[in-house]
């Protein structure tokens, strides 16, 4: 069976999202702009504004000159995404595979409805009435590929649909306007000047000439015009978020009581997730007290789990370091991050180990504080204190590693082979250097170009042996350094590394060889 894809368009979706909270603006000329400033451009408008002569791309100032009583709303991307996510969740009841092209345009997989609906048009009608019930104007199109269904939806009237039968994509697209193609204004004007106004006229052009004139983008658009769009549906996976609140008849003061109620709420939520084949790795618990305090507790595990015991063990540790200001009257438990449950057989041992490690880390953070658990990394630099970083220790989550591919460039700075960056100032047999970071100020007395006496860090001593100098400089683009290093040995046998900073004309103690 050939694939069938439906496209649902909600015209002016970003503007509608704003107007839902302000119904008094429905009858007034209203536009949605990039931001609240006068120079921002009009992105969406309602019919009243269009009738007054406002057009897309005008600045607010221009639009207000045309229509003085115009109401301007600023774009709120967060709200749009939230409303879009809500709608997508509801559309999952029509199709398991949904792709959001942008807020207001959604593709659904229309294959496999035949068990529930005898004909495609019944399914399309049901879809239209469903979205209409959510309070949005909608139009839909169904075809063999994404572009055909998009064109079908674009040419439909509000609350209606267009169905393009299998194999009829080319015929359907032939008389449609080239404005429906996803191309820039420049390309559209070129085609218009060539007398090409319909998709049919564009589709008959030879591939090579289109490639020469418009490049690879033109060839891709040519394929769309011919009805040969083979781009697959990229379904988005929606995160299930569960939130449950328990109001307590008698306020709780003890940890055991809080743990009991949280466990009962969490078990239900996790079993719901388990039925959907999901697990979670992040839970937020909010304790609301009688004095209106809200105490948030974040619980995070290394590997997603749907066992409440894993989270309750962490909760016990977190509650140990909290002093409740008043009895707790309300408990809210939010499941924050969900993902498909990984195969038990393949990763059982690793999962158990990772969760034990997260428990150990939680206990350590409780004792030491989160900023004091570090792991060393060697960095390429000439400055001794710049040669390493002590970064906070983090559990290696597979998902985080996948998401951090963008940071690969910064990882190149980390050096694993020290052959170029070793501390090769001298052949000091005692290679164990203890570094003072930041370097400590020192007072040095020299005679005849040799260092004779040093006072630093509550000690002083006469120099019996010195080696150096070694000069290093760099980082001229930021604070910069220009140093002259010496290794000195005192009469009592202590060996230090000191340097003279040329820019500030001061001596510093860098470290001690031990």
């Amino acid at each position: 069976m050939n694939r069938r894809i439906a496209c649902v368009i909600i015209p002016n979706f970003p503007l509608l999202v704003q107007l839902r909270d302000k119904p008094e603006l429905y009858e007034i000329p209203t536009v949605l702009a990039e931001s609240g400033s006068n120079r921002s451009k009009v992105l969406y408008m309602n019919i009243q504004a269009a009738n007054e002569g406002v057009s897309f791309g005008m600045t607010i100032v221009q639009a207000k000159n045309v229509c003085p009583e115009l109401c301007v709303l600023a774009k709120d991307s967060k709200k749009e995404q939230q409303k879009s996510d809500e709608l997508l969740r509801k559309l999952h009841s029509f199709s398991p595979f949904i792709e959001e092209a942008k807020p207001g345009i959604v593709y659904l997989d229309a294959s496999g409805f035949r068990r529930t609906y005898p004909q495609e048009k019944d399914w399309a009608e049901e879809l239209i009435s469903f979205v209409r019930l959510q309070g949005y104007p909608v139009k839909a199109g169904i075809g063999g590929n994404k572009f055909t269904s998009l064109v079908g939806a674009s040419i439909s009237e509000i609350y209606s649909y267009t169905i393009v039968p299998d194999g009829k994509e080319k015929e359907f697209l032939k008389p449609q306007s080239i404005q429906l193609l996803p191309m820039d204004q420049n390309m559209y004007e070129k085609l218009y000047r060539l007398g090409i106004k319909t998709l049919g006229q564009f589709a008959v052009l030879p591939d090579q000439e289109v490639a020469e004139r418009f490049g690879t983008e033109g060839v891709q658009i040519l394929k769309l015009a011919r009805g040969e769009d083979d781009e697959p549906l990229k379904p988005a996976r929606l995160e299930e978020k569960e939130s449950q609140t328990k109001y307590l008849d008698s306020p709780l003061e003890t940890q055991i009581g809080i743990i009991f109620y949280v466990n009962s709420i969490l078990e239900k939520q996790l079993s719901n997730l388990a039925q959907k084949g999901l697990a979670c790795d992040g839970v937020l618990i909010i304790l609301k007290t009688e004095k209106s305090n809200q105490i948030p507790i974040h619980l995070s595990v290394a590997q997603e789990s749907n066992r409440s015991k894993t989270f309750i063990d962490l909760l016990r540790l977190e509650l140990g370091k909290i002093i409740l200001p008043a009895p707790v009257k309300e408990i809210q438990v939010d499941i924050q991050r969900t993902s498909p449950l990984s195969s038990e057989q393949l990763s059982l041992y690793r999962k158990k180990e990772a969760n034990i490690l997260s428990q150990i880390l939680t206990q350590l953070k409780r004792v030491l504080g989160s900023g004091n658990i570090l792991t060393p990394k060697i960095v390429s630099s000439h400055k001794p204190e710049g040669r390493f970083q002590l970064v906070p220790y983090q559990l290696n989550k597979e998902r985080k590693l996948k998401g951090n591919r963008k940071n690969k460039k910064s990882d190149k700075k980390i050096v694993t082979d020290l052959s170029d960056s070793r501390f090769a100032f001298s052949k000091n047999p005692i290679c164990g250097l203890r570094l003072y970071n930041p370097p400590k100020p020192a007072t040095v007395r020299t005679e005849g170009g040799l260092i004779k006496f040093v006072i630093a860090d509550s000690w002083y001593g006469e120099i019996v042996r010195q080696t150096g100098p070694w000069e290093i400089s760099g980082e001229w683009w930021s604070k910069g350094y220009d140093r002259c290093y010496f290794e000195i040995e005192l009469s009592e046998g202590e060996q230090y590394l000191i340097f003279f900073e040329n820019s500030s004309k001061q001596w510093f103690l860098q470290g001690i060889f031990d």
Partner: protein
Amino acid sequence: MSSVANKTLIQQLKKRIADKHPRALIRWGEYIPFPTGIHSLDNDLLQGGLPSGHLIEIIGSKSSGKTTLLFKILSGLSKAENSIAYFDFPHTFYPPSAQESGIDLKNLLVLRPKNIQFGLRAAEILFRNGGICVAVFDLVSTRDRISKTMLLRLKRSVKQAKGIGIFLREPGSTQIQRNQIALCLKVERLNQKLQIKTEKSLFGKETQAVELVLNE
């Protein structure tokens, strides 16, 4: 089966288990040595390596080479894939120097507690949960006191985990109760050599000494 055959069978089983799980055969009073990788230290001074399940002290004055010796020991331990927690109280730990000595930084966790009591508590948590095999307490230039209770708890957790706790200190810094330490190594520098003496040892003759040539 005859008693001789029984004994032979038991020895064969022990050998098989020892290959895969050496610590499974440990008995009270016995220990599994952690080889340091320094030949003269392991063979002449220690009986095969550092004793597991005990607290060890390394003491030396400034620039005596004690940190160099510690890094060499940790290098041997990390090569055997033992996880190490380094409690850096004076905040002078220099990772490039550690890596040059051969320590695998991937097996190293650096912790900077506010005071020694928190550090000992954290080490106890790590040993109890099997998070580490070796804990190093760098007490150079610290003056805090260690409570006997905390030290006893640490010693117990080290024993149960069959790990090693190493205290690095210099004369005048934080004192460790001698009766809790199983092995005390004193380090002195003699020109290009390090002299290591056992000031106290429950595992061999006391007041033994070896000399190490640096940069071996």
